[in-house]
């Protein structure tokens, strides 16, 4: 094994993007994303790539759109409320099938919100990428290593499906430092065909224009639908932790899963058959996998998330279709649940089933 470097999730995601071939980054400062932006501000110049600190998140995401349209491997990162500023163009990126990668480090709450870590953008990220009802491929890393790996793979995925990849993470991943093994630097990547690189008279590229009836039509939207069906069949990712003979399964992602992991171990030591199911793709959601719980001898499901009202629980509920009792433990703002809180809740659930 190569030597692992100690780095924060922000730095690991930034460096992984560069190694995956990201050649354009535009962004605007917002806590807790700033160390990612700062890292890119020096590192992109070191490797001869393009970096812009934009005038706003609106500017940043539209620069990303231009870079992607022109064949660049474009990337931006932001947090919480600033995603709202990007939403119009995120919709455009999906509609125009422009490969690009966006990181959202979630912040607590609505409006001005707070800067504590949270999971309050689940619905926002998974239900419709802005107006129009199209989707990004939404990923939720569980720790710094996985954040690095998911960002690295995101660029190839975006190119493969000509789509937006949206990393929905939190400050627990972004700011915590852990040893990370980074993947190698990709070199001499080809410029994507079909991008606007200057051409005319027959070879002309029209990106997102009104005469693109291949995308702007019923058939076009059926093709988006078909792509999402393919994702649901082939691109769902999740982790099962101590699920082999589990009777009580905790469903959690990102920081909640991290906090809960120790609780599973504790409950196992107490003789309770507890396990954890951690969705890594939030869109497509692992609906079929959760729907199959009842056939595996699982007796109850506990949804854990840092969002009030809870959000992911709607997708878990939709997946279960009433086949198993569903419990929840949720929190927000300054009262993030602890491993001990989750242990207590799991014991309560174990008593009831």
């Amino acid at each position: 094994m190569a030597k692992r470097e100690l780095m924060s999730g922000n730095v690991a995601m930034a460096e992984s993007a560069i190694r995956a071939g990201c050649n354009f980054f535009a962004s605007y400062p917002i806590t807790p994303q700033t160390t990612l932006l700062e890292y890119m501000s020096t590192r992109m110049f070191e490797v001869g790539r393009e970096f812009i600190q934009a005038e706003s998140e609106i500017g940043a995401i539209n620069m990303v759109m231009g870079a992607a349209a022109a064949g660049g491997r474009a990337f931006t990162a932001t947090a919480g409320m600033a995603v709202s500023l990007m939403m119009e163009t995120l919709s455009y990126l999906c509609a125009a099938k422009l490969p690009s990668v966006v990181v959202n480090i979630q912040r607590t709450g609505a409006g001005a919100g707070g800067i504590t870590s949270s999971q309050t953008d689940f619905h926002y990220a998974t239900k419709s990428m802005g107006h129009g009802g199209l989707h990004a491929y939404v990923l939720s890393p569980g720790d710094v290593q996985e954040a690095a790996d998911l960002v690295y793979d995101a660029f190839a995925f975006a190119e493969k499906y000509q789509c937006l990849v949206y990393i929905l993470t939190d400050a627990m991943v972004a700011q915590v430092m852990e040893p990370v093994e980074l993947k190698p630097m990709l070199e001499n990547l080809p410029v994507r065909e079909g991008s606007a690189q200057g051409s005319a008279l027959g070879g002309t590229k029209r990106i997102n224009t009104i005469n693109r009836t291949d995308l702007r039509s019923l058939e076009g939207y059926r093709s988006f639908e078909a792509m999402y069906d393919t994702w649901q069949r082939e691109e769902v990712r999740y982790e099962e932790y101590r699920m082999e003979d589990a009777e009580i399964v905790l469903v959690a992602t990102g920081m909640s899963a991290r906090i809960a992991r120790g609780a599973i171990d504790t409950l196992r030591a107490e003789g309770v058959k507890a396990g954890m199911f951690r969705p890594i793709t939030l869109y497509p959601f692992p609906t079929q996998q959760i729907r199959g719980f009842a056939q595996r001898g699982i007796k109850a499901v506990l949804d854990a998330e840092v969002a009030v009202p809870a959000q992911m629980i709607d997708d878990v509920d939709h997946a279960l279709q009433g086949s198993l009792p569903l419990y929840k433990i949720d929190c927000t703002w300054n009262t993030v649940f602890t491993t001990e809180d989750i242990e207590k809740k799991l014991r309560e659930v174990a008593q009831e089933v």
Partner: protein
Amino acid sequence: MKAVYERNPLLMGSNKFCPGCGHPLLNKIIADVLAENNWAGDAITALCIGCALNMTPYVDWDLVQCPHGRAAAVATGIKHVQKSKLVFTYQGDGDAAGIGLTETFHAASRGEPFTQIMVNNQIYGMTGGQSSCTTLIGQKTTTSGPSGRDPAHTGYPTKLAEVIAMVDAAGYVARVSIHTPKHIRQAKKAIEKAFRLQMEENKYTFVEVLAMCPTNFHVEPWDAPAYTEEKVLPVFPLGEFKTPEGR
């Protein structure tokens, strides 16, 4: 037989603009500048939302249609990835000076080496003639009220060329018109100069083009040049506001 005039092959078929509209004329001017300088194969346009997007099926070079107002940011991204290419925005006044002023201003401030072309017809044309930030005092629109734009309520027309000329990093800023053959020749020269300064000297350049919208000026197409001369030019003076040689 010697051809005395040939259709520019960069212009395809007919267009959907209204009679007397400035856009198809300006599309032709740009197409001619591209063809004459052999730039067509290098051109990438960041196209705005509004009447301007009817240019899409009419011209035959690379186009990227942008969210409303964001053409300058999109062009920034394009130019950073395609540094040797001729990148220019094509935007209306509502797009570049209204909803997109921030993106316009900061692209100029950073000195991004592309060209912004703002087509100023003092109106939101595509949506049916609502007031724009450039609407003239007294001009009647569907949102101005019956007596036209009143400065007591909505202030005065935005003069973007003059504003951009104050930006240090702007390399060339001009306002031109296309209502007479003489003005068309001047406009063509200004656009060519803006493109050349971008390509050869890496300058941010800005050209505001006064265009006619007879439909929403409520005049006949043949009366639109006189309307421009009498009503528009006194408010929006023509000229080069900033050149590399000095103001």
